[in-house]
């Protein structure tokens, strides 16, 4: 997987978490995933289509989600399934949206789909959509981001043809 596709997501996650949690984050671990994705907690999935296509999953354990939600809200929130789901989905939405904004500024065009809860352990990554798993360590707990993106070959061909004309 191309690092130029991944870096905007790392930057976006860092910025969104730093702003929302009012603390710095560190990348705790980084690994390639070849097997089917195994959820670590509550996960939200966002599909991206266009010049680059694939999906981004954000994954938090419920206690971390409550701490994150409370930080974002500026007040202690009671744990509930709804709060946990909403927090994970909105976090995925903000990270993906900010990353897509940066990639769009580089000339890529996409459509971001609304987040959905990732309830299964997902399809196996194919060879050209291998997934990268990044763990962000924050004061509120660990936040996992799983990214599987690839260039849309048909769109790449169209762009190359347009450039050659």
């Amino acid at each position: 997987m191309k690092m130029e596709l991944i870096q905007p997501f790392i930057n976006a996650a860092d910025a969104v978490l730093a702003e929302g949690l009012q603390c710095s984050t560190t990348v705790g671990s980084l690994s390639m995933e070849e097997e089917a994705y195994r959820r670590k907690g509550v996960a939200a999935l966002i599909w991206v289509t266009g010049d680059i296509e694939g999906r981004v999953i954000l994954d938090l354990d419920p206690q971390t989600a409550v701490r994150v939600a409370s930080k974002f809200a500026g007040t202690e929130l009671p744990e509930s399934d709804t709060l946990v789901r909403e927090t994970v989905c909105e976090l995925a939405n903000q990270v993906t949206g900010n990353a897509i904004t940066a990639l769009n500024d580089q000339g890529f065009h996409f459509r971001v789909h609304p987040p959905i809860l990732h309830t299964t352990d997902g399809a196996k990554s194919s060879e050209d959509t291998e997934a990268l798993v990044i763990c962000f360590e924050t004061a509120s707990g660990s936040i996992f981001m799983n990214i599987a993106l690839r260039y849309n070959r048909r769109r790449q061909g169209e762009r190359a043809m347009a450039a050659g004309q």
Partner: protein
Amino acid sequence: MEQFAPVKRSKDGQPVRYLVVDDSVFARKNLVRIIETFGGQLAGEAGDGATAITEYDRTNPDIVLMDITMPQMEGIEAAEKIVRQHPEARIVMVSSVGYQENIVAALQRGARHFVQKPVKPEVLYEVIKYVLGEDATVSNAAGAGA
């Protein structure tokens, strides 16, 4: 959360009324908390563009805070439909997807401004004051912190 000098309607000194549109309940709640720090009042909420249109008709808010990526009907389309019916509508797009094409599309279809998520209260506060213009006054009430 930081408190701001209350923004009131010039015509009657009442709090500015907001319609908050986002498919995420979490995001809506956070926006409501922020507008309360501006002295604002929630007129209504909607979780998609189609509901936003009916809620606008029902509540006639001073400001709409509208997400872009939503199921059923996206925010830009909803903004266009509201402005077509209510040219005076003041709609501020609030989205994590902040690239130029999106912003231009929203502004061309009638939105007045754009704020990127995660929302910084101080940024939204300035945008609200700008969009309301002379239709708002900033009260110097005690407790104002900004």
